[in-house]
């Protein structure tokens, strides 16, 4: 078992070798997830019931977290991360945000929230 801080992707072995093995070679998730889809642990499945890769993935979604962030922390391609997360959703361990329509660029209320949020950071 690789240490947590050791890259899962072995440059010499070819970048695609390791990631594919954790998802049994699958890159097609059973759920529609995109990079910004938010996922969160349901708390209904314990990590000890899962294989190490799934347990690591579950640990990364304690609170609502984007698929992109989970992928970055797992150091796995997003496509492979989506497979792991879909499996966790299917197992009831993780809840995924229901697909929402894309943010409307003319939604004045949303834009005001962004403006306030950004101005607070100045």
């Amino acid at each position: 078992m690789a240490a947590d801080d050791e890259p899962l992707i072995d440059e010499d072995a070819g970048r695609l070798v390791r990631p594919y093995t954790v998802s049994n070679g699958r890159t097609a998730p059973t759920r529609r997830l995109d990079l910004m889809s938010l996922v969160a642990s349901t708390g209904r499945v314990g990590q000890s019931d899962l294989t190490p890769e799934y347990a690591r993935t579950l640990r990364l979604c304690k609170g609502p977290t984007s698929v992109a962030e989970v992928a970055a922390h797992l150091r796995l391609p997003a496509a492979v991360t989506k497979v792991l997360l879909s499996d966790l959703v299917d197992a009831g361990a993780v809840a995924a945000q229901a697909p929402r329509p894309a943010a409307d660029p003319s939604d004045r209320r949303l834009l005001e929230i962004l403006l306030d949020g950004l101005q607070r950071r100045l």
Partner: protein
Amino acid sequence: MAYSDGSDPFPTAVKVLVAGGFGVGKTTFIGSASEIEPLSTEELITAASAGHDDLHGVEDKTTTTVAFDFGRITMDPSHVLYLFGTPGQDRFWFMWEELSNGALGAVVLADPRRLQDCFSAVDFFEHRRIPFLVAVNEFDGAYRYTAEEVRSALKLGAGTPVLTCDARVARSATETLIALVRHLIAVPASP
């Protein structure tokens, strides 16, 4: 997860892209503006899904990985802004396609030493009617263009804001994002 009462415990995630040519300061900009260290991940791209004539260097592979980076800014408990950096090389245009899906708008960073490098980003957002502004990242010792010079060099429409920024400075990156949101508020909704 949608509950039976129709509520959804997840915040609304919105996306803004940070684009521009190779080495223009996209990762630096995202790191300055983000509340987290910029993260990077890879997307698997299969050549079958690509079908473009400008795939030099990747045409011999069936699958390739494209790295992109992103940052996050929490606006309030129910709104999170994600910044996604587009890959700098034009040959990864198909990744831009995926990243731009659902984006509210974009910051196009321009390097004053090679303004023309952001042409393809400008083109991309104009064609997809994604609102954007051009921020000239002021590298030390580079010629200081006026906004009008940049506008005419890049053939920008009169409505597209042009400003300068220093991608290394949090305040400057944040001000650039504020200018983008003000621009979004000002542009009429597309038909």
